[in-house]
């Protein structure tokens, strides 16, 4: 539990409300905002995401103070979590519809999942295998399935950026991280017990 403020970034993307609801339910101090002063005051920042890479980046640039966000996250090292497309935009580049520039906070690119015979999007409950132990997985025991909805995945340039991989026709990054920055490909806000545990672990990050 933290007394700090969690800022859920509001940039005109979907499911902001469900991320807010679950954090509130967990007893955290949370605000939905895209304002500079809230981002500066927050102890933790979460970027939810539904939609395509290019659209998410475009909406972020239109609605968020990008320089301030970069100062807080990359400059000052404030804990940051990107969810689904919010994770994918951490990469340098994305190839959904057309090539788009990402935030470039974790080196890599985003491409279509090679699911073989399995249909896309990958929708439903799936588990992952932890490759690099990290406090974000603390207390994760028997209930470890998460809810995924995506067709694209994060190819990290550096192996050590991938903390866990899931399997859907191929192994892909389920959790990425670099320093204070985390990304979840699944939706913790829709993943009941397991998702709430990981969100609480994120909020414990200093």
């Amino acid at each position, binding site marked *: 539990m933290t007394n700090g403020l969690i800022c859920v970034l509001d940039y005109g993307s979907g499911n902001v409300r*469900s991320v807010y609801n679950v954090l509130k339910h967990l007893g955290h101090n949370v605000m939905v905002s895209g304002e500079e002063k809230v981002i500066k005051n927050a102890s933790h920042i979460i970027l939810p995401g539904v939609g395509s890479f290019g659209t998410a980046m475009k909406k972020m640039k239109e609605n968020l103070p990008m320089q301030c966000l970069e100062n807080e996250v990359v400059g000052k090292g404030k804990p940051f979590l990107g969810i689904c497309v919010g994770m994918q935009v951490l990469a340098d580049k994305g190839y959904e519809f057309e090539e788009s520039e990402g935030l470039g906070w974790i080196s890599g690119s985003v491409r279509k999942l090679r699911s073989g015979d399995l*249909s896309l*999007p990958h*929708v439903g*409950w799936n588990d992952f295998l932890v490759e690099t132990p990290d406090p974000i997985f603390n207390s994760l025991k028997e209930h470890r*399935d998460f809810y995924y909805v995506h067709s694209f995945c994060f190819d990290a340039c550096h192996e050590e950026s991938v903390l866990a991989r899931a399997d859907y026709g191929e192994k892909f990054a389920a959790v990425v991280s670099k320093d204070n920055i985390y990304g979840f490909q699944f939706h913790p*806000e829709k993943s*009941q017990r397991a*998702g709430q545990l990981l969100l609480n672990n994120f909020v414990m990050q200093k």
Partner: protein
Amino acid sequence: MKKNRLIPVVLLRNGWIVQSKGFSSYQNLGNPIASVKRLSEWASDEIIYLDISTDDKYDLRRDDQGYKNRDNFLDIIRDVSDVTFMPITVGGKIRSLSDIEIRLYSGADKVCLNTMAIEDIKLVESAVREFGSQCIIISIDAKEGPNGHKVFSHGGKRETKFEPHELATIAENSGVGEILINSIDRDGQGTGYDIQLLQQITNSVSIPVIGCGGVSEWHHFSDAFEQAGVDAVAAANIFHYVDQSVFLAKKYLFDNGVNVRKPDLIKL
């Protein structure tokens, strides 16, 4: 590995949860907000809400259980999504892209289209482009006649020209994410799924198929997975009658080696 799902269906009629039999007789089962708490505590994989009201009057007269009175389906969905942390699908009375948009805005993750798929498949294609495949489920209501299964529209009242597998294929080609196949004959009968009907669909499409209609015993669920190869099983009535129903059903499946999430009871 991706898991098979167990999905409670909640039928809402004028703001109340109802039990349905043969798509025609309905019995009142109570308040949707009280029920969603139970379905969450039993760790359902998703919930499907279907609005089967006959007109647009919603009446939650009983105010004695400490839950708000809601007279509008969208308000109910909003309340439900505030207290549950799993995917929600919403269906019933969706005729336009703005109908879809307002449901997603109210907290739904996916929508379930029925009559639209029969009457205007171009509109379904537009919905897929606008909101993504993952967001659009087509539900097919089927009934067996002298010439095999036929698709029915308008809440099971009108027979169409389609055989279920034809409509399923059209839906898949239009880019929809999943098919929910429901047997009108089995609705409320408790005699198990219409396995032949489910097979007809799973054999003709490669997108996930959700089977519905006829469950009264836990082994009916594993029958559908094992004999028809569905991706998910859905049921309505049984989940409202038995305490810890979802948990017990999942435990049965898990113990019998079906690839489902480990059963869980969550304290809310």
